[in-house]
């Protein structure tokens, strides 16, 4: 093998290596969105009257710390309520059965997430259990509408 052929081989090898390193870098940066997928997890269900614009993969937070993600959103055809599946990291499997789930907003224009407030019951939620106490999303536009109607209705003396 001549010297030039060897040089070509080396540079092609380095080029492909650099490309693969870049791919691995990008993959490692994009794996965060499913960050609990690697860990063991369990699923809870919660029913809401209205979920606002909650999206799949929205965070599930306990005391403000993300402990899971919304894994599925569907509509219960009998009750006409939204059923949200929460996939929660198994490290947090000690949630009491009277845990309260509400749909909260991160900041004023931020995305929706699910906020869990643990209750005081001794019984612990198991995989596939349903959260009984829920609060729907507060729709900002409804609040503004109500506020405007109220102020308009009042006499303005």
């Amino acid at each position, binding site marked *: 093998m001549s010297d030039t052929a060897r040089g070509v081989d080396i540079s092609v090898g380095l080029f492909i290596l650099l490309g693969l390193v870049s791919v691995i870098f990008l993959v490692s940066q*994009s794996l965060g969105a499913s960050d609990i997928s690697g860990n063991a997890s369990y699923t809870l269900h919660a029913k809401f009257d209205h979920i606002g614009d909650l999206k799949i993969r929205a965070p599930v937070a306990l005391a403000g710390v993300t402990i899971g993600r919304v894994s599925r959103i569907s509509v219960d055809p009998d009750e006409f309520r939204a059923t949200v599946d929460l996939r929660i990291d198994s490290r947090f499997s000690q949630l009491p059965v009277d845990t309260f789930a509400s749909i909260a907003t991160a900041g004023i224009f931020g995305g929706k997430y699910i906020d869990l407030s643990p209750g005081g019951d001794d019984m612990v939620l198991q995989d596939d259990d349903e959260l009984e106490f829920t609060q729907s999303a507060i729709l900002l536009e409804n609040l503004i509408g109500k506020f405007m109607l109220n102020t308009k209705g009042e006499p303005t003396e």
Partner: protein
Amino acid sequence: MSTLVRNSWSRFSEFAATFGGFQMFSFRLLPYLPAALLKPRLITEQIYAIGVLSLVLTMFGGFFVGTVLALQSYGTLVEFGQVDSLGAFAAEALVRELGPVVAALLFAGRAGSAVASELGLMRATDQIAAIELMAVDPVERIVVPRFIAGMISVPLLAAIFCAVGMLGVYLVGVHLLGVDGGAFWTHIHDRVDLYEDLGSGMLKSFVFGVSASLMGVYEGFYAAPTPAGVSRAATRTVVITSVWILLFDFILTGISLPGV
């Protein structure tokens, strides 16, 4: 009037003939692909000529696209107090759109035109005929290694473009504009999705790679054997490849965006 109709018809049929010839040529290449892998030497040489020599231009392009992206989006994001998501915004733009498209356009300009003029000059100086006389198939020997090398190189170049672009965004965003480094990476982790963003970007750059290298070898192989023909082949490669890349980009973005 009849002249106009006749001219348009002849132009249209010429276009159809070229387009059909291009499809036939693409299918003609398919059976050669497995056999070409038995001669990796030819492919390595072409990866060097096509990919390695485009590397500096691609990295340069990626870095400065990243820095400009950071500077431009910072001005808008700072108005809404969302500078923390600068990284996520730039990463999505780079991985989904800018990386595959700009890397492929640079590739078409740097390597596609080189392949076309190289093959065109081989045609003009009867080297292709000479290879045929030696009972060596010119498609197998000349065309297919260049095509495979392009197909391999473009996705790698696009990935390098994105990675270097992220470096540029990071340097400008975090070190120059003072975005918090931790929030920068956290937002990227949260927002960029493996399949929806990176997957669709890589799929795009693979499609762009196939079309860019196919166009280069086709135009060069069938170039008119004159100096004007060779230059025409190089020009057509860049122009038609760019049009294809932008067209495919629209189609693939439409397919991969959910809920559109």
